[in-house]
């Protein structure tokens, strides 16, 4: 069933790309923008996978120090979550591959178009079905797949673009329906960080200096000899507050990336619908929204790297 739906998508989007080829001035820009949006979506899912892996490690540690068992059955729930997120990342990458192929198709000569269309069809067959975990993939894509099958004419730009727009709508619908779980994963990371940091600092098992050192750097006032200066309650509390703030910062960036990705998919779908008309279409605004999402995701990576480097310096 999954493969069949993927195949239907492949046939129809291949038809779209052939149609897009008749308007060579629009297809390359649509391809570039769509590819960037799909890439940002895949990176967003990758980030959620990394957050889940972080949560898994931290919960294993926290359970151990508090004497709570972490049964295999419960770990399997996290594995299932990761599998679901990875499947979605794969879906996003396949969408990006389709847009890349669309760009290649639009830039090819008329005689090479059929071959390019075939390659595009093959790449689209790789689009996986959604996992059973939270949504019925057949139900989500059934309406689009039906319309896709209705596209018989390769040069039917109107139908093709509308079909692509509906595909983007369905992906955005999936995003919005699962939004609460995505955001919850970030909050779960916050709770792990807060609980573990509190336990380690309160029991004087970890040094509060790494987060405090950053403040000293910011204001240009180095701490007095840290070997002699024993952090008091207020300094320990301040270190804890900084650790929590950094975790929340990752969350805020992740939520911002989600918003920008969702908006870019919505705008991209609207552009596809505008392709049916004859007026000028500019993709710049969509691309700017995608770039903002990319910037958010880059910042998350930077914060994660900073935390690791800080820890290495401390060690």
């Amino acid at each position, binding site marked *: 069933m999954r493969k069949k739906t993927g195949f239907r998508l492949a046939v129809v989007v291949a038809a779209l790309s052939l149609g897009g080829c008749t308007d060579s001035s629009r297809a390359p820009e649509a391809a570039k923008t769509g590819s960037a949006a799909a890439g940002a979506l895949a990176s967003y899912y990758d980030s959620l996978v990394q957050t889940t892996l972080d949560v898994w490690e931290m919960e294993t540690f926290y359970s151990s120090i508090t004497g709570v068992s972490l049964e295999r059955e419960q770990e399997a729930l996290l594995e299932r979550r990761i599998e*679901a997120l990875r499947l979605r990342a794969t879906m996003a990458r396949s969408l990006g591959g389709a847009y890349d192929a669309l760009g290649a198709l639009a830039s090819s000569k008329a005689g090479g178009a059929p071959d390019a269309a075939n390659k595009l069809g093959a790449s689209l067959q790789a689009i996986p079905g959604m996992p059973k975990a939270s949504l019925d993939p057949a139900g989500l894509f059934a309406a689009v797949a039906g319309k896709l099958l209705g596209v018989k004419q390769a040069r039917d730009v109107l139908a093709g673009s509308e079909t692509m727009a509906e595909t983007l709508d369905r992906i955005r619908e999936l995003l919005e329906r699962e939004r609460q779980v995505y955001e919850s994963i970030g909050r779960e990371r916050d709770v792990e960080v807060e609980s573990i940091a509190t336990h380690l600092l309160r029991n004087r098992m970890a040094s509060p200096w790494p987060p405090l050192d950053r403040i000293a750097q910011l204001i240009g006032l180095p701490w007095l000899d840290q070997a002699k200066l024993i952090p008091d309650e207020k300094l320990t509390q301040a270190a804890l507050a900084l650790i929590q703030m950094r975790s929340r910062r990752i969350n805020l960036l992740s939520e911002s990336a989600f918003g920008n990705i969702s908006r870019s998919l919505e705008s991209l779908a609207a552009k596809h619908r505008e392709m049916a008309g004859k007026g000028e279409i500019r993709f710049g605004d969509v691309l700017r929204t995608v770039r903002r999402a990319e910037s958010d995701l880059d910042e998350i990576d930077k914060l994660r790297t900073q935390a690791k480097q800080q820890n290495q310096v401390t060690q």
Partner: protein
Amino acid sequence: MSESFAVLESQYFTLHRNLSGMLSACKDETERTRVRTEYAQARGNYWRAQNKVFDEGNAEVLKATAEAKAGQAKMEQALAHLESIATAIEIVAAAVRTGTRLASFVPV
């Protein structure tokens, strides 16, 4: 946000933040075992909920959501007064039981 999911998330996160404090307040190993068991159950409820879609239209879910919310409020009150650890454990256990019931309504 699904109210049912929010309740299960809140229940687990509240226990997570207070686990160390509750364990320290326990008088004996029996009490500590109870606390750990309820925590693991709440964690499982939350993780299962992440892998499912809630049907907010289900009347039973709505009823259980209201019950779980009430339990959550009691739990937070009890956690604010840890001097009565035995009472707190009973209230937490009742709230987690409701959460387990709520999670069971959601199809796998």
